[in-house]
């Protein structure tokens, strides 16, 4: 994709987001001039940029939206919710188009039809459709009347078809004739590459020379081909693409008429002299037109009351008039001219310049100038950036940096293995200590680097919360409920992966609240509550974790109903039905296969329930809990790590094979004499500070051939999973390491007992255990 288009797409994203946000805020604070202005400006900027490309429907739709906003801004119209709906729909449509543009570099074929109804609706409050095509946005009319002779290279059938298509569509077509210099290869030009990059290409003809040189004269380093291209790309894009070879291309825009006339045999433009001869005079007349425009501007400025009197303004007008006169080939001396003399000079110049054709010698001058400048650009500098202090960086680059930090960590960890080897294998304790010192220094730098990169990856929670005002608005309308959304702590930062992964669970929770939790207004009033419900999204940082809370003041969860439902579905036993406390009952909603809605609603019920929320949160290394008071509301709390990039694991080994266990889960490591081990109901246990802790034999669970030696102390790693303490019998403990966890891929993707792999400093691959699954496995093995 050309850089101009990708810049446009990136910018469009930001602009559309601020339009959406502004429109939603406007519903709350109707008519706020600051907000209206903000929305208008974003739409306006977007329209301005879109005009650089040939997206006529896009520009027309944005234009309609902008006109409506302009009326609102001017106080001539009050924005009602119908208009807001139309505006939101328009920008939604545009967002869809842009996704299409991202993939195909053109608008979808249905764009015209899709936009038509919206444009009519947007224009309705303004008194109907704007008369005629939008002159302001369509750009200068560039359709020329006669086809150039090289149009003959396109086959007649295709041209006929195209003329027919052009007659019925708003799209326009440009034709490019590109004749690379014969020695272009020596100037590092690559015609084929250029042609390949032509956006929205409709037709390409590679034109061979009329006669090929004889084999003796043939020079394979000479470019003899020409290219005739038809494209829907805008002139601006094409000029940008061919900016290094402006003298070798000719761009014309033809309408259906011009093509038809060409087909019916009308003598082509510039018959005997091809491209270059036609190029120069065109520049002449255009330059003269620009010069006259400058003169006209000067005249207006000079004759408007009190605009130009003296000083800077006078000097600037004097300068512009001198420049225009120079371009017209009529140099003037205006060194000390006052306003009156300037007006006189402008009138005289305009009179002279208008009828007389421009002397050729003078008019060619700017062309040479361009060539001269073209050489200068070889040593160009990128040009200063004024006032830009925020860098927008491609996400992939940050990910790459993070990967490198990970590799650095692995290499760094290698030093500790080296230190061990120095001491154990080579018997040099001094060397070992010096390596460890080095390691300590490197470790500090690596940690700082890691923190710095992670900081770059941090995004505010507002990114995750951003979609909810719209979602809540749309859903509450459909449900006929009145809901006030409150967000708190949007500035809390978390890693972008966490933020991204948080999206779906949050949507699910919010939809659940809207659909099941919050009552209709009349029911609320009957229950003595305010008619408008309150839904709160709050985020707060808590050490290495971020806590996100979703709460509502709706009807809450009915523990009796939940228990009954769970019993009917066979999720709990009859005994549990009797004994479960209310809070335990609420927790049942997280059980797989549970759904409280009697009917699956089209909003939240999609076959995935709260169990999916819990699963995805736990996959992030987080936890989710729900509290509810029947009749008063529900409160769901997600606790997530601030960053998923680096995991600290404790390394243990069984049968010589090492495994990692997330340090967050580890409670302690203990050595227990055999005599203190006990057995309860076929389960090995150990008594720790008065608590019975079940002990699981990791070797047995993972089917590894190892058993502890007779009478040898048992090494037990105590972990805490779901609030329960469990001991793992292992062969040996090793150190804690920081690793970048890579998910299991390929065939191993289904090995649920492992949450991922990590590379250790000595090159070995560490399997990191998913404790929850391992415990499940243990239950099945036993």
């Amino acid at each position, binding site marked *: 994709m050309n850089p101009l288009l990708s810049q446009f797409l990136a910018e469009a994203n930001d602009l559309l987001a601020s339009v959406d946000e502004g429109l939603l805020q406007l519903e709350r604070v109707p008519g706020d001039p600051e907000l209206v202005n903000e929305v208008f400006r974003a739409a306006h*900027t977007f329209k301005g940029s879109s005009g650089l490309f040939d997206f006529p429907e896009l520009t027309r739709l944005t234009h309609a939206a902008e006109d409506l906003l302009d009326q609102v801004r001017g106080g001539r119209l009050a924005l009602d919710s119908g208009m807001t709906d139309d505006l939101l729909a328009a920008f939604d449509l545009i967002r869809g188009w842009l996704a299409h543009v991202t993939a195909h570099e053109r608008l979808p074929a249905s764009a015209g039809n899709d936009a038509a109804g919206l444009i009519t609706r947007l224009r309705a409050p303004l008194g109907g459709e704007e008369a005629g095509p939008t002159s302001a946005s369509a750009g200068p009319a560039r359709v020329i009347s006669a086809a150039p002779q090289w149009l003959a290279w396109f086959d007649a059938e295709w041209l006929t078809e195209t003329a027919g298509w052009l007659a019925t569509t708003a799209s326009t077509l440009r034709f490019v004739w590109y004749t690379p210099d014969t020695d272009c290869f020596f100037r590092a030009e690559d015609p084929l590459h250029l042609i390949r990059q032509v956006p929205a290409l409709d037709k390409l003809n590679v034109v061979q020379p009329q006669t090929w040189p004889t084999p003796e004269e043939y020079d394979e380093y000479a470019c003899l081909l020409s290219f005739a291209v038809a494209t829907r790309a805008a002139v601006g894009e094409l*000029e940008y693409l061919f900016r290094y070879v402006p003298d070798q291309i000719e761009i014309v825009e033809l309408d259906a008429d011009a093509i038809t006339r060409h087909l019916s045999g009308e003598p082509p433009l510039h018959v005997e002299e091809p491209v270059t001869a036609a190029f120069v005079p065109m520049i002449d007349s255009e330059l003269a037109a620009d010069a006259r425009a400058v003169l006209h501007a000067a005249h207006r400025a000079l004759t408007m009351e009190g605009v130009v009197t003296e*000083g800077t303004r006078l000097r*600037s*007008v004097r*300068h512009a008039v001198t*420049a225009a006169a120079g371009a017209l080939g009529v140099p003037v001396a205006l060194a000390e001219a006052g306003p009156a003399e300037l007006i006189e000079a402008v009138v005289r110049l305009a009179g002279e310049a208008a009828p007389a054709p421009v002397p050729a010698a003078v008019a060619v001058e700017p062309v040479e100038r*361009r060539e001269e400048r073209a050489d200068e650009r070889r040593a*160009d500098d990128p040009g200063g950036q004024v006032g830009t202090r925020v860098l927008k960086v491609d996400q992939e680059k940050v990910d790459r940096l993070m990967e490198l930090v990970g590799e650095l960590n692995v290499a760094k960890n290698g030093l500790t293995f080296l230190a061990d080897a120095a001491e154990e294998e080579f018997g040099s304790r001094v060397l070992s200590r010096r390596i460890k010192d080095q390691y300590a220094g490197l470790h500090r730098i690596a940690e700082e680097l890691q923190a710095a990169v992670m900081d770059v990856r941090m995004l505010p929670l507002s990114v995750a919360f951003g979609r909810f005002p719209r979602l809540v608005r749309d859903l509450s309308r459909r449900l006929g409920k009145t809901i006030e959304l409150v967000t708190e702590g949007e500035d809390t930062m978390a890693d972008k992966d966490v933020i991204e992964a948080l999206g779906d669970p949050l949507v699910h929770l919010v939809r659940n609240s809207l659909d099941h939790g919050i009552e209709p207004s009349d029911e609320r009033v009957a229950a003595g509550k305010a008619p408008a419900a309150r839904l709160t999204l709050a985020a707060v940082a808590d050490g290495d974790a971020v806590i996100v809370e979703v709460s509502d003041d709706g009807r809450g969860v009915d523990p009796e109903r939940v228990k009954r439902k769970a019993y009917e579905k066979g999720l709990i036993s009859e005994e549990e039905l009797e004994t479960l406390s209310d809070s335990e009952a609420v927790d049942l909603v997280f059980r797989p296969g549970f759904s409280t809605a009697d009917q699956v609603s089209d909003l939240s019920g999609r076959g995935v329930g709260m169990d999916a929320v819990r699963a995805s949160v736990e996959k992030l290394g987080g936890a989710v809990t729900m509290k509810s008071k029947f009749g008063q509301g529900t409160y769901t709390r997600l606790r997530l790590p601030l960053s998923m990039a680096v995991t600290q694991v404790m390394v243990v080994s069984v049968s010589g094979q090492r495994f990692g266990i997330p340090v967050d889960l580890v409670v302690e490591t203990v050595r227990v004499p055999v005599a203190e081990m006990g057995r309860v109901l076929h389960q090995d246990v150990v008594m720790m500070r008065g608590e019975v802790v079940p002990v699981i034999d990791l070797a047995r669970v993972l089917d590894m051939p190892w058993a502890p030696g007779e009478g040898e102390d048992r090494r037990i790693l105590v972990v805490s999973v779901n609030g329960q303490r469990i001991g793992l019998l292992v062969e040996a403990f090793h150190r804690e390491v920081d690793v970048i966890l890579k998910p299991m891929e390929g065939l191993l993707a289904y090995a649920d007992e492992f949450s991922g792999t990590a590379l250790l400093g000595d090159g070995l691959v560490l399997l990191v255990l998913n404790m929850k699954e391992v415990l499940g496995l243990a239950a099945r093995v036993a």
Partner: protein
Amino acid sequence: MTSDTATRARVLVVDDAATVRLYHNSLLSEAGFEVSEAANGLEAVEASLSAEFDLYVVDVNMPKMNGYTCVETLRSETVGTAAPVVMISTEDRPGDADRAYQAGANLYLVKPVAGDRLVRVATMLTAGREEAA
């Protein structure tokens, strides 16, 4: 034929749309101008205080300080820039051009401006910059 900075005309491209800035910047850079960018009127005025430009290409509708105010400020006695100003806007209503001239612009063009036209106008307006200085 040297690319000596002193001989290259300096242009400040002022527009809040990054796409438009990139478009104008690359067209003018390719044509041999030394181009700087500013994202609104205020940045443009700040830039004009710390560096001299031979041409300003200014958008109209911008946050913080719009194009008209920006050009008026450039022309005020405190800043005192006599360098040519081309204003470029999507607005094409009667009176828009006059407002630009009133502010002190030397030319008013309607977006999108064809690449060759922008380069042509820039070349023309910076042709006699030594005399003007």
